[in-house]
């Protein structure tokens, strides 16, 4: 856990601008990862190391392979070459190995993907109950704790369809946290939200970052990247173009491709 409660991200860890170097423990390691969809190469030679408690924000134009990259980490997509290691466990074709990695990585989706046939609380406690075999009472206690954490305990007995988008996404975050993951993957968590609901979700994510969660966040929210990220990864055409601290990245980008992208969005 991080000892510094302040939100100066660079103050929390020593951070390297190099994509493959990281301070302390390595949480996620990607080496020479390639991914093809038919003839289309979605990822080419991805090398990235992410340290424990590090927050990495991935940005880039649509179709650049951001989502594909983080979906490879928990095997929602299968990479075709290279290796991916999550907390010392290498992803292989072994089903048990995949299950193990999925237990340790929480994921939050653009479209929330809550289970509409279950109440909010049941959504949250489903995985602890069935995967971690947690007793019902204990799981419910944990579930309520997490719902309080994301500030919607009063919605526990409702169904996802009765909640606003921002509330649903916060439930999705609580659901992922219920497995006590070591890494959280966020796949454009605010892209499907109405503008007025974006901040409540980003605030929850900031909370999580300040508590020392290892996070990879694919997003278009540059403010969030600037404020929370330890490092920013810029991707284009399936490649990592540039990696750096937010200051470095937003004030002094090195690559032309990065400069072009930033000039288009800022």
């Amino acid at each position, binding site marked *: 856990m991080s000892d510094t409660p302040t939100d100066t991200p660079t103050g929390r860890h020593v951070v390297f601008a190099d994509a493959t170097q990281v301070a302390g423990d390595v949480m996620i390691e990607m080496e020479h990862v390639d991914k093809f969809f038919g003839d289309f190469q979605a990822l080419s030679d991805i090398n990235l190391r992410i340290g424990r408690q590090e927050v990495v924000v991935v940005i880039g134009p649509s179709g650049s392979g951001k989502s594909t990259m983080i979906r490879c980490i*928990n*095997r*929602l997509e299968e990479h075709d070459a290279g290796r991916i290691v999550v907390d010392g466990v290498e992803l292989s074709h072994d089903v048990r190995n995949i*299950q193990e990695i*999925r*237990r340790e*990585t*929480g*994921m939050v*989706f653009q*479209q929330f*993907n*809550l*289970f*509409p*046939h279950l*109440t909010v609380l049941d959504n949250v406690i*489903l*995985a602890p109950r*069935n*995967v971690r075999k947690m007793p019902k009472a204990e799981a419910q206690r944990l579930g309520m704790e997490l719902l309080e954490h994301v500030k919607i305990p009063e919605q526990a*007995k*409702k*169904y*996802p*369809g*009765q909640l606003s988008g921002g509330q649903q996404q916060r439930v*999705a975050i609580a*659901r*992922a946290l219920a*497995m006590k993951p070591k890494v959280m993957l966020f796949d454009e968590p605010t892209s499907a939200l109405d503008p007025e609901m974006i901040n409540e979700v980003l605030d929850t994510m900031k909370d999580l970052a300040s508590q020392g969660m290892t996070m990879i966040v694919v997003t278009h929210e540059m403010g969030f990247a600037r404020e929370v990220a330890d490092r920013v990864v810029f991707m284009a055409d399936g490649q990592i173009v540039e990696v750096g601290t937010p200051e470095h990245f937003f004030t002094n980008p090195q690559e032309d491709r990065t400069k072009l992208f930033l000039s288009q969005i800022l």
Partner: protein
Amino acid sequence: MTAPVLRTPAGVWLRRNLFRSPVDGVITVVAALVSAWVLYKTVRFVFVTGRWEVIERNLQLLVMGRFPAPHVLRLAVTVVVLSAWAGVIAGIVHARQVRAARADLESTSWSRARVLDLGERFWIPGLLVLLLLALTNTAGPWIMTAIAIVAAVVGRLLGPFLGRRIHGAVGGAILTIALAAVPIGLYLYVVDAVGFGEWGGFMLNLFLAACSIILCYPLGVLLALGRRSGLPLVRVVSTLYIELVRGAPLFVLLLFANVALGFFVPAGMTPSTPTRAIVVFTLFTAAYMAEIVRGGLQSVPKGQFEAAKALGLSPPRQTFLIVLPQALRNVIPAQIGQLISLFKDTALAGVAMGLFELLRVSSAITQQPDFRGQGLIGETLAFGAVLFWTVSYTMSRESQRLERKLGVGTR
């Protein structure tokens, strides 16, 4: 300030909805005349020209076939126990839902609204029961119905109590087994006195349908999952089964089971005819059910699978906890349609297999010495149609209710 109440004068309403243009007017007049004529004919048939004595005299035959009189009491006991059983189940289900604190079910008291709701649900089958009772000339059925209603109410009141006292995985399993044992026990109790092969009448239609529905449903779900399985052998076998069975007419399959089974199975080992009918109905409907369920599976968004996977759920849990519940809910109307169709198809078992079910009874009784040659087939078929319609329509209504209940919080 209250919103102004807009009342349309009758004349304006008529002009707007029925006589908007000359063509509309002609259609309205023609439709009204045809409707009036049909209504007139129907009412006349029911109350004036229809000769219903054939129904009154043969009511027992229509309802329970040639069930031996000394054992009819066992059927009455069965009806009473089944009523209590259904009441207990309704009570347990309701208690569980209240415990889950679903917003729309918070009241447990017998409010006026609840009674009205029950009335709205069951007034049509209730009318049918009254009609049947009115046609009898003995006290037995009246007494049985009264006791059955009392049993259902007692069961309904006991149900929540049972549900509260028995909980946990073991308690739940014991309760489920005990509840499942009741209909099986009743079947054995009745069959002990009167062999399955001697059952008949509308009771047989209901029994064939109930057994086939219970058996075909899980088989259909498994076939649907099999057809989407990643294992090629399972997929090919499921697909072959579905396509072969759907390619054969039900009538042919029933004939085949009746006639040709003897060529393959030694004489002493052939199951009774009603059992064979149940097997055919089950296997046939399961193939259709499988395709309906497969449609439901395809309607579940890909994100649901991904979320389940990302949480580390094992593939069977992904299927049974996440995908299947949504898939089955999405196709309730088609599923119930198939089950209603199965229920009505039980009438085919009479012609194809010689079972003495309602349709065959209906035509047989017109050949009795007292009624022969009087053209009473219209009356007997109409009576049979009313029985079939009432049950089918009740199934349909209950399915809509189920859909509404399960639709809580749909996106």
